[in-house]
């Protein structure tokens, strides 16, 4: 396919997807709408992380911390922190806090850029990981700003957010969860378009040049300092927006809302979605939100042959008789999750974006071979 055709197809698919997102709530339950809202939130965070890791080649194990900064910015602006002895009285409407959360997290990301310049690879991974690890403790430490360990509760303040009351917007009445869904997905689609615009031009080329070879990038006049810092800033801003929506959707924040595991799962989502591709990230977001829930529902016993169910005794030399445990016990979901994750890495080496890319190549090859 020529680039022009590719672009037209791309726009058509995107438009179809927007239409799909717009009508989906009519066909699913209220609860499901809330679940899909979370998928939109993760998509925003993954878009940001992919700009940094997939396009610029800088591994971050600390994006949960940027989400925490965004989430806390929103929560504090809404609920205030005077009740803990802080200076902010709050009272801001939820939607207005979202861009501010993005800006605050983005500024922190920019500030993190210059020190990160000195580090690369695993050293950078450790440095970002350090932020993720330190974040919960830092939140507890600055109690007068953040409410410490018990966090900030937004539930039951309908004038701000976090209530089950219907929302009136554009002459329609939406249930609260449908409103949440549309809020998250509108921002997610805008974020998707923004990421595409950033990456298609000069800036995106510079990012990829930095990823592919720093030395070659510098000798072509690409400033490492400028573009690495910029990538950190943009990426953190996306994460901040996602964190803000996360706080709004879950109606509370506390230090455990953004655990270290979140940072790791964001990286998992980016790799599953496909590094250096945007379309696959949707599947990365679905993966990190739904796979834990799905594996919770699995009874491992149904996956195993009958001969190894509970109470079966196996004789092992030297050790003696071994009584096989029941399968419906804690730990089972984690086993399923781990196996699925490893198998996915075996089966789709370049993530879901890689599959799309491959299909595109096959289609193109057929076209060319037919015309010749």
């Amino acid at each position: 396919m020529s680039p022009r055709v590719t672009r037209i197809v791309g726009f058509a698919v995107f438009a179809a997807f927007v239409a799909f997102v717009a009508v989906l709530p009519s066909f699913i339950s209220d609860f499901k709408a809330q679940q899909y809202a979370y998928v939109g939130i993760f998509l925003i965070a993954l878009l940001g992380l992919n700009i940094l890791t997939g396009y610029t080649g800088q591994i971050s194990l600390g994006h949960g911390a940027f989400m925490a900064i965004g989430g806390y910015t929103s929560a504090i602006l809404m609920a205030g922190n005077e009740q803990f002895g802080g200076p902010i009285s709050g009272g801001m409407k939820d939607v207005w806090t979202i861009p501010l959360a993005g800006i605050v997290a983005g500024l922190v990301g920019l500030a993190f850029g210059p020190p990160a310049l000195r580090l690369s690879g695993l050293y950078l991974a450790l440095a970002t990981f350090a932020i993720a690890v330190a974040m919960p403790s830092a939140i507890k430490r600055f109690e007068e700003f953040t409410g410490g360990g018990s966090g900030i509760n937004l539930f039951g303040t309908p004038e701000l957010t976090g209530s089950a009351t219907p929302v009136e917007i554009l002459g329609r009445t939406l249930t609260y969860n449908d409103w949440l869904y549309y809020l998250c997905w509108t921002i997610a689609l805008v974020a998707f378009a923004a990421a595409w615009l950033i990456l298609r031009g000069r800036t995106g080329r510079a990012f990829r040049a930095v990823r592919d070879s720093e030395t070659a990038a510098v000798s072509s006049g690409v400033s490492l300092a400028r573009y690495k810092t910029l990538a950190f800033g943009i990426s953190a801003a996306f994460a901040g927006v996602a964190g803000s929506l996360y706080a709004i959707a879950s109606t509370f924040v506390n230090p455990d809302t953004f655990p270290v595991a979140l940072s790791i799962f964001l990286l998992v989502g980016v790799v599953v979605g496909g590094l250096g591709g945007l379309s696959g990230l949707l599947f990365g977001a679905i993966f990190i939100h739904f796979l834990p829930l799905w594996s919770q529902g699995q009874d491992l016993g149904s996956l195993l042959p009958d001969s190894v169910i509970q109470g079966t005794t196996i004789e092992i030399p030297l050790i003696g008789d071994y009584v096989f445990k029941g399968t419906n016990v804690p730990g089972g979901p984690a086993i399923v999750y781990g196996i699925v994750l490893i198998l996915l890495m075996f089966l789709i080496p370049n993530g879901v974006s890689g599959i799309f890319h491959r299909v595109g190549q096959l289609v193109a090859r057929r076209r060319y071979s037919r015309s010749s």
Partner: protein
Amino acid sequence: MPVATFADFMQQVVTGLASGGVYALLALALVIIHRSTGVINFAQGEMATLSTYVAWALIAHHGWRYWPAFVATLAISFLGGIATHRLVIRPVERGSVLRIVIVTIGLLILINGFVLWQWGGEPQALRSPFGTETYDIGGVVVPAHDIGTIAVALGIVVLLWGLFKFTKVGLALRAVAVNPQEARLVGVRVTWMLALGWGLAATLGAVAGMLTAPTVGLDPQMMQAVLIYAFAAAVLGGIDSPAGAVAGGLMLGVLLNMLSYLTQYDLFDWFSEELRLPMALLVILVVLLVRPSGLFGHPEVKRV
């Protein structure tokens, strides 16, 4: 305000060296895998926890004595490490490094789930092979377990150094770490050397786990914090340097212990147990900003 004496100081150093010895062993495991496979093995801590559970099960359920169980666990871990490399890591070895990283994260989740599923979440007790006595050395009270830990850690490090330095296998292992293609050309069986590296790392982890369990108690989350410390120690020393990993582990152990000890003074009363980990990482961050390749690492020189 208590007055610090030299004995107090030495006390903290010895306790720090004992926990640092454990970090050093696990950091060494991380370095060995990083040198051969090029990734940080996130599952290293869980592999160690699994090994420790195997030792505990042999002792508690099957009536084995400690040292036979210890040796058997090392053997099982070694074979388990080789099997892990052959079954799980080898299929993804070509391609993006991040893919291997995600596989090790999958392995972390899988092994953690397996341990919880098989042995439950309640803490178990694994006794120390060195007993519970304490020795008074010039006013410094040292538990036998601490002495034993330091001795075992140093012994293993020396053994490993000997293996790498004086044996043919060690030479092959080093050759593979430096240049796999050329090593293959001169007849080194590269894949088996990589698997051997994983086996050695799993064995080191098993030792670290069995030395940790008596002091903190055996539960499925036991090695998670230790892994973070070991990661920090390995990076502090320079991720490509085994000697750096050992030095980094010991320094980190002493540093952390000193920080906890200082909390009794007014000047440091803001410091709490909770800040131990962030504080350690902060110190390492500062070190890295001054020396981006760690204390003993070599900056990577790349051909464009």
